[in-house]
């Protein structure tokens, strides 16, 4: 009996998360939202730019969270999807002359298709094997973008320069601030859609597959369809993030989208809490600001300082920001009584 139990409890790659714990309460959400809306008014343009990147990486971490936290599939290939999204937006804007806002849904759709198709062969792989396959995708992507064959469109090693859009309707705000609010609206839209997705029939199918694939298929879940769907959705969101990233940074080049980006997004997911969507923004903050802090503490040892900080975080809270949120919630509950 105990041996059987053992096999069952060891099976899921990701710890089960109670469904209700995947989101924030309404009150907390409104407070966070208000902070995000008001903050840019008081800070300099460069900080607004960093906050925009925070939202963009937050989206990318969220996408990985849907894939790994939702459906239990591991991916190191997110940088490839991000690159495809970024290049789609950049090429449509610079070569076709399309409006920046219209390029984003196209980037999303192309990445969705790409992720869905990539999910097909990946179906047969799981765990480390899937990690290796997605890793291969991530290492191949910068090389593919550099190929002479595509050079007319991608600009080869040089990359492409993207023009930053002005605020429309003559609104009195800087380009950075406009882009921040634009990104914020998209981020909120995608966040709400993701939360609803995970609460829907499809989301329950994802989680059933994550918790036990065999049991899920016995319950009538089409495992192949939902696994590839999870890949598609994750890639699509990453693609939109990539497109936004290209517009915000005003530049795309193959070496901006290496495996290092994938690893950062992965770390962001772990720090934020696997399977807890609001944690994505915390994870994103970690991967944007902590390397800078590490650099500030010691230039030569920045790698070591970053590593030590990461260890401190995972020692204190192995379940990431989710754990902090749960503890905080309990404390507040106690205070009320």
């Amino acid at each position: 009996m105990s041996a059987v139990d053992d096999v069952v409890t060891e099976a899921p790659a990701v710890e089960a998360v109670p469904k209700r714990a995947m989101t924030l309460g309404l009150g907390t959400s409104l407070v966070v939202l208000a902070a995000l809306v008001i903050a840019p008014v008081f800070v300099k343009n460069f900080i607004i730019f960093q906050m925009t990147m925070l939202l963009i990486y937050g989206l990318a971490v969220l996408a990985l969270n849907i894939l790994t936290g939702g459906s239990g599939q591991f991916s190191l290939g997110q940088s490839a999807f991000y690159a495809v999204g970024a290049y789609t937006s950049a090429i449509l804007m610079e070569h076709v002359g399309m409006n920046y806002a219209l390029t984003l849904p196209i980037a999303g759709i192309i990445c969705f298709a790409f992720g869905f198709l990539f999910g097909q062969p990946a179906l047969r792989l799981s765990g480390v094997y899937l990690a290796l396959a997605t890793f291969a995708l991530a290492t191949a992507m910068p090389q593919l973008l550099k190929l002479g064959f595509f050079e007319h469109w991608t600009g080869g090693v040089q990359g492409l320069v993207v023009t930053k859009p002005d605020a429309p309707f003559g609104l009195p705000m800087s380009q950075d601030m406009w882009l921040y609010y634009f990104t914020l609206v998209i981020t909120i839209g995608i966040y709400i859609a993701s939360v609803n997705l995970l609460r829907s029939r499809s989301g329950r199918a994802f989680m059933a597959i994550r918790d036990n694939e065999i049991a899920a298929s016995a319950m009538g879940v089409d495992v192949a369809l939902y696994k590839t769907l999870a890949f598609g959705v994750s890639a699509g969101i990453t693609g939109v993030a990539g497109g936004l990233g290209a517009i915000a940074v005003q530049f795309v080049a193959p070496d901006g989208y290496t495996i290092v980006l994938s690893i950062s997004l992965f770390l962001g997911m772990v720090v934020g809490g696997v399977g807890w969507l609001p944690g994505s923004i915390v994870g994103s903050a970690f991967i944007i600001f902590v390397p800078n802090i590490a650099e500030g503490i010691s230039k030569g040892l920045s790698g070591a300082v970053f590593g030590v900080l990461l260890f401190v975080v995972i020692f204190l809270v192995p379940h990431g920001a989710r754990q902090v949120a749960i503890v905080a919630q309990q404390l507040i509950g106690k205070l009320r009584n």
Partner: protein
Amino acid sequence: MELFTNQVLAGIATGAIYACMALAVVMIYQAIDHLNFAQGEMAMFSTFISWQLMQWGIPYWWAFLATLIISFAGGIAIERLLFKPLAKAPILTNVAGFIALYGIINSVAGLIWDFTIKQYPTPFGSSPFLGSQLISTHQAGMIGVTVLLLILLFLFFQYTRIGLAMRAAAALPESARLVGINTSWMIALGWGMASAIGAIAGILIAPVVFLEPNMMLGVLLYGFAAAVLGGLTSPLGAVVGGFLVGVFENLAGTYIPGVGNELKLPIALALIITVLVFKPAGLFGRPIVKRV
């Protein structure tokens, strides 16, 4: 035809490097069930320790022996200090820990020994082996050591009590504990052995790729790929996988037009994935059967 034979020989020579590293990867996978991303950096650090010992005038083989002991102890220390407390944490948190360890070791090695490339001596000499220009005596020696290591590991796991205990602890920890095996220390022992094997790999590889803090990055990737190709549960598979990846990579670079150095890795990986799609547990691995 001669070009083909030469390329295969050269592939086997580089494959020996990958095989060595893959063996270390499989060792630790056997013991702890994770891929250790910091394995290459641990091997690099060990190699630097041996280099430092030699700089202080200790003869090659004594330095080699001392490095093995230090690495073994170091591997156990890392497990006890950093990863034992994380044993109950989710798997992905452990993976983040490996990435953190990678950053720490790489950066510390860079600080102590800086990033300049250093020569590393070889005990085998570097003259052509049996008249072939493509394989040097060092590379032949490397293949020899890898095979010897494989045989020793096989004997250890098959015929010693402690080898059996380690296998039991990895396969069914609960049951192993019930029959009185100290599974926690078996994991530590696995880390120690993997670290020592990594040190051997590093010392053998260093004369070819030269010694510097980033020397293991490429090698580790190929080592992982080789281990996965051969099947993560099989040390023999890891070694065969290593040689196969080396040969693949060389042949692809020679015969497929437009494949420069940069596209070699993606093509090797694509081939491995194609193999995996047809044999999901690797060439020599045993598929894991799950019960519900």
